[in-house]
């Protein structure tokens, strides 16, 4: 199977180069890039799913003179699972991207978009099969920079440039921690080979602990743990929508993969790692969805909800680790399974939602949901798929989001009853957190879907809206169907990922979970049946009676206008009131003043807590400190001579003080 994976990497890189070479002819580079990526994704998806089903292990060591490290790749269930995610979602997104980029032809060079897109996919694949620290880092960095150049694709826009810079800073500071981790491991193990790590790091020791913390920070930056998430909400709106879909759907999961891989070679984890992850998950999930509620830029909203879902994944991991550390196979299985399944699910519905946002952006030219509304009638397919995505991301039954959250819940419940109280409490903390997150998510996506697609159109931006092209519609439909399938038949999905989960815990707890999941299928079908019955019932009841159309009942008000609809901001206002302490708010108001006020304006901006209360002040202080250092270079040659003399004296005194004592 590795051969096939290698082939698809080759295809990706080859098509990337091809697209780059053909940079003068946009159409051909678009064709080359898309074709190569689709081919590679089909090949890779087939290979990785086959590997996952047969849960085979492979490894290959290339003989190639690198200064350090070696090109060592391998394939196991975990890799196969993530490969499947990468290939499936990337393939769908590629098709969408082909449709999304078409209007740019002639307006802007397309080659970079395609080249870096394929490079990004290739880098992620290489990352997942890497079995050597250095090779891993190389792939990681290529991934970061490819995505950076994709984010700054429309770099003539100021906000895009700023977002790119934020992303660059975040990813580079993050990778510094990974450098530190691998350097430490490589130093203690004498080699950068993952297998040698596994052997040489005493499990649960201080070294393992330090490495775990480094990994949490380093990988967490990419995954978007709060407060390291700060780059996400800037980068996603800046990037072209299909890139946002890929980044949010797949790339940030590479952080999760890294964390899982680290857990594998750091040996059996102590319980506090799990507690830490549960804590991170709670903070990340809640603050992510809270900030999502405050956004009016639909892609920012989606980005924040990615942060939220990463939080859910972290909760799952935390519960799993706590279970694993207490040798409670069932809890461990449920936690890890929930996390992994949610990785896949979130990949599906988040890419779907970003694609939907992309087609809305295409149709109306705006990302501000306050100026949208009533889009459903113009773009039914987008609307329907977006609704499916919203239901899925809220974790509501019939769709895949529910299955994974259900697993995490179940794990937490079991942990509460099966573990010593101290750790039980930590695991159980996940339950109310998930409940709160779920309720907030429902509010958030009712708002998003309702304000964008339902009701009357708030501005004329919508009037000219048109449904997206087939190349964009098709992937959305397929993804939505996949969401529904996994949601209605979760047992199959679980059976597929079980081998990956069992790398962490050898739990036979699968069977009971599986039959519960089949029960879910049963109930889902009952629900679907009930709905159909009711629909028919209504048809029957209404037969022969007059069904009339009328304007919406305005409670007696004669002339309702679209601008009188509830706006997105007013929708969340009462909901956010209890949480306002957590969200920095900037108010700008002028007037009404004077006896005959002319006009008055009032504006509220809800910012990002971590960004505005922690990171921004820190960076400002840092720049200040640097500018204080700069006074040493002030141009006067006498001063420079003083530096030389002073250095000489200081060093001489320092070195000779000891020696000449005798």
């Amino acid at each position, binding site marked *: 199977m590795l051969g096939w994976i290698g082939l698809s990497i080759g295809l990706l890189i080859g098509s990337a180069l091809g697209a780059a070479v053909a940079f003068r002819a946009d159409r051909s580079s678009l064709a080359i890039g898309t074709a190569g990526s689709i081919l590679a994704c089909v090949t890779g998806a087939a290979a990785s799913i086959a590997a996952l089903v047969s849960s085979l292990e492979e490894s290959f060591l290339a003989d190639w003179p690198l200064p350090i490290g070696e090109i060592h790749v391998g394939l196991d269930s975990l890799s196969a699972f993530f490969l499947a995610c990468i290939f499936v979602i990337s393939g769908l997104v590629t098709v969408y991207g082909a449709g999304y980029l078409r209007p740019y032809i002639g307006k802007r060079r397309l080659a970079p978009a395609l080249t870096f897109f394929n490079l990004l996919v290739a880098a992620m694949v290489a990352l997942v099969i890497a079995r050597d620290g250095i090779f891993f880092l190389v792939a990681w960095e290529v991934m970061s920079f490819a995505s950076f150049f994709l984010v700054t694709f429309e770099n003539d826009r100021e906000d895009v440039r700023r977002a790119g810079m934020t992303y660059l800073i975040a990813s580079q500071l993050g990778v510094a921690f990974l450098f530190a981790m691998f350097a430490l491991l490589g130093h203690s193990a004498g080699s950068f080979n993952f297998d040698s790590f596994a052997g040489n790091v005493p499990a649960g020791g201080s070294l393992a602990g330090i490495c775990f913390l480094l990994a949490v920070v380093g990988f967490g930056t990419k995954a978007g743990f709060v407060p390291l998430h700060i780059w996400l909400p800037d980068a996603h709106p800046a990037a072209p929508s299909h890139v946002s879909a890929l980044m949010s759907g797949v790339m940030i999961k590479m952080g999760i993969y890294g964390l899982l891989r680290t857990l594998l070679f750091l040996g059996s984890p102590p319980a506090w790692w799990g507690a830490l992850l549960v804590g991170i998950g709670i903070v990340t999930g809640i603050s992510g969805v809270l900030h999502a509620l405050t956004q009016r830029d639909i892609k920012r909203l989606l980005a924040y909800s990615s942060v939220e879902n990463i939080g859910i994944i972290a909760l799952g991991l935390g519960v799993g680790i706590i279970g694993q550390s207490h040798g409670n196979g069932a809890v461990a299985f449920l936690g890890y399974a929930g996390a992994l399944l949610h990785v896949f699910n979130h990949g599906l519905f988040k890419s779907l939602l970003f694609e939907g946002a992309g087609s809305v952006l295409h149709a109306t030219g705006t990302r501000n949901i306050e100026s949208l509304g009533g889009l459903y009638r113009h773009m039914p397919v987008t609307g329907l798929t977006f609704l499916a995505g919203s239901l899925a991301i809220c974790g509501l039954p019939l769709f895949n989001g529910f299955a994974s959250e259900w697993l995490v819940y179940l794990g937490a419940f079991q942990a509460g009853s099966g573990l010593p109280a101290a750790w039980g409490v930590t695991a159980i903390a996940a339950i109310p957190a998930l409940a709160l997150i779920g309720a907030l998510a429902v509010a958030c996506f009712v708002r998003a879907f309702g304000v964008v697609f339902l009701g009357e159109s708030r501005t004329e931006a919508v009037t000219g809206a048109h449904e997206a092209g087939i190349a964009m519609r098709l992937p959305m439909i397929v993804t939505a169907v996949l969401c529904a399938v996994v949601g209605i038949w979760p047992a199959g999905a679980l059976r597929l990922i079980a081998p990956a989960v069992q790398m962490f815990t050898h739990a036979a707890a699968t069977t009971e979970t599986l039959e519960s999941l089949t029960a879910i299928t049963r109930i889902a079908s009952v629900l679907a049946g009930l709905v159909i019955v009711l629909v028919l019932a209504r048809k029957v009841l209404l037969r022969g009676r007059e069904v009339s159309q009328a304007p919406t009942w305005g409670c007696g008000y004669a002339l309702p206008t679209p601008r009188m609809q509830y706006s997105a901001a007013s929708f969340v206002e009462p909901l956010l009131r209890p949480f306002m302490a957590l969200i920095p708010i900037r108010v700008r108001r002028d007037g009404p003043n004077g006896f005959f006020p002319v006009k008055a304006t009032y504006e509220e901006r809800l910012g990002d807590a971590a960004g505005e209360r922690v990171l921004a002040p820190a960076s400002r202080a840092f720049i200040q400190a640097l500018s204080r250092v700069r006074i040493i*270079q002030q141009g006067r040659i*006498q001063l420079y001579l003083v530096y030389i003399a002073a250095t000489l004296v200081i060093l001489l005194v320092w070195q000779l003080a000891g020696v000449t004592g005798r």
Partner: protein
Amino acid sequence: MKDYADLLLLLVAVSNLYIVATSRLNSCVRASAIQGAALALLPLVLWTSGFNVQLFHLAVICAGTLAIKAIVIPILVSRAIREANVRREVDPSVSLHSSVLLAGLLMGISFWMSTVLVLPRPAPTMLLVPVAFATLLTGFLVLISRRQAITHVIGYLLIENGVFIFGQTLAREVPFAVELGILLDLLVGIFVMGIAINHISREFDHIDTELLSTLKD
């Protein structure tokens, strides 16, 4: 004959003080010329005091030093002064009195240093090391506390002289071709600096290096 050597070294020290003390550029140059001459004689005196070197080597070094340090360089510098019509006064950023005091202090420091850093093999004369240090430090003092480019050249010259005196302690370790090379470097260095000073005086109508501080961050 040792006391002759000490005499020469004393002369060097005095010339240091004089360079620091005087307010006139030309006298600075003259003092440096005298110092150069003294340095040129130094190896000879040391040789007569039984510090044995090959005669040829000795002669070449003495002649070369005399020629370059006592004659050519002073001429170069004074020509630079003439052509670049600079003010004839040094304008120190530290007042002359205090710079004299500083020079005295530096002298003291260098005596102390010579007691700290003892030569593994006894030097031909006790004064050699302290005077060498003093000359070096005085060079730095001139470089740092004077504003004109010319005085910078002189400061550099003083530093070189200090190093030269040290060189005397191991005259025989260095093949004289190298020693000549060193002298040559010094010469060319001063020469290039002179040219630079010319350019400077043409570009900025005088050579106060305070003006040479536009490049900064």
